């Protein structure tokens, strides 16, 4: 898709000046204070390049999820701006968030249905997405017949069916057991390499962040703010053997130290 579409924010606070060439998401001096006075975010400036994978780590209460919700337009900033360069945004929740009465295929096709895409396109997108997450053959199953990991795959496929240019992932693997979690991380790496979206990935696992991302944003709590941004210079494609790579281990250690910082 060519980038001639107008710059879009999701709620009308667009400040296109900060969404310069090559950027897909731009937080500029973004702040969010709730009506009760709680400062969720303070003065966050974070540009995200097109096609980049950015992970956000931080302790609970540091506003990392809020950052995603702002990008998705589920919240609006009270100061500064958030700009997203596309309307084509996928969002992955912490829970799989599926319609319990609908089959895997109908769940995957939900957002394309809501967008009223032509029927043939919908079918083709759903086929592709279901295959891409390895759920071929489970199309007619109901969510309750699936394991936690498989449900999360359905959730991923649902976002993929939109062919999003930006993917926002809010601790998507937090509720999974360790083994499933590692599987899903590799699956996501694979999808990222093939589908080529821009990703903003919130997690509290440093090792997960370093494994997946080009840049890791370390946040600090009360008020939520960016403490450091670390470039991860590990070439792609990345595989499971990376977990024992000294360069990777060193990066994990560095980010962990930044995260411990001043608590």
């Amino acid at each position, binding site marked *: 898709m060519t980038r001639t579409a107008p710059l879009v924010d999701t709620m009308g606070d667009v400040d296109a000046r900060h969404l310069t060439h090559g950027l897909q998401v731009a937080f500029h001096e973004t702040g969010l204070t709730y009506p009760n006075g709680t400062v969720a975010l303070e003065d966050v400036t974070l540009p995200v390049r097109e096609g980049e994978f950015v992970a956000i780590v931080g302790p609970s209460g540091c506003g990392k999820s809020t950052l995603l919700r702002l990008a998705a*337009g589920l919240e609006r900033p009270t100061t500064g701006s958030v700009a997203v360069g596309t309307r084509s945004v996928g969002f992955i929740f912490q*829970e799989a968030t599926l*319609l319990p*009465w609908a089959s895997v295929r109908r769940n995957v096709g939900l957002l394309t249905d809501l*967008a009223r895409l032509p029927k043939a396109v919908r079918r083709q997108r759903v086929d592709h997405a279901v295959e891409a997450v390895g759920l071929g053959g489970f199309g007619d199953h109901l969510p309750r017949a699936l394991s936690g990991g498989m449900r999360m795959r359905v959730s991923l496929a649902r976002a993929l069916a939109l062919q999003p240019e930006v993917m926002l992932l809010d601790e998507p693997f937090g509720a999974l057991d360790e083994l499933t979690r590692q599987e899903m991380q590799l699956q996501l790496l694979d999808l990222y390499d093939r589908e080529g979206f821009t990703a903003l990935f919130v997690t509290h696992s440093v090792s997960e962040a370093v494994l997946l991302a080009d840049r890791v944003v370390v946040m600090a709590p009360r008020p939520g703010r960016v403490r450091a941004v670390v470039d991860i210079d590990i070439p792609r494609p990345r595989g499971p053997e990376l977990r024992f790579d000294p360069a990777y281990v060193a990066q994990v250690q560095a980010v962990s130290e930044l995260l411990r910082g001043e608590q």
Partner: protein
Amino acid sequence: MSSVPVSGAAPRALAPRLTLHVGRLALRSLRGALVPVLALAGGLLAWYGVSYLVLAEDRRFLLPPPHQVWQLSVSDPAHLRPMLEALWITAQVAGIGFVLATTIGVAVGALMAQARWLERVVYPYAVLLQVIPVLAIVPLIGLWFGFSVTARIVVCVMIALFPIITNTHFGFRSIDRGLRELFVLGRASTAQRLVRLELPAAAPSILTGLRIASGQVVIGAIIGDMFFAQGQAGIGTLINTYRAQLRSEDLIAAIGLAALFGLLVFAASVALSSLLVGRWHSSGDRH
């Protein structure tokens, strides 16, 4: 079926164990059926006991024994037919009342869930409807709607409305926040949200309301029969007449029929639940 490639040896080897298993299952279901049969027999025995041991002969008309109810009323077409005809009238009243209460109740419950202020405007009226004793408002209903079938339907609607409204409202309110946000992100229209999220998600709760209402509506129809006796007679009308004429065999038969009808309606609404949401929601499972 000769094309099915099954080796003959395996099923044969399984056969004795299978028979044993089937036998055990049959025994268990027999034992399962035995309990209700015994309960029924116990009930009839108690009935005979009251008729013959508690009541003296001159007062036996208060509770005639089962076989007498059968002989003098249920098995005699001249007695049974008017009862069945009246029951059919009552069933129609209950049915129309149920459909109206469902339509109004789901609409009001859904409306209340749209905004807090709407809830605060509408809910007190729903509660009012519930706390006004039906018998107290019967004269007013008669004045407004006449003392015939229309008034009976109104009673049905009034008595069935509250559980439908509150359960629908609860169902809409309990929808997962993540799913709601998903529909916001998908830029769903109000109609899409209603049809693809809210109604199906609230269905188990709405059906719970309908199950309660289905019992209420039968009560409402029979009360209606008794107080609005003009026009075609319902089973409640007959029950009143039998009481006045001291026809206790017919009275008991009619009450039994009314109870059977209520049971049938309840069973139908349970079946509806399991048909509509049983596939994905535990409330629709058969217990």
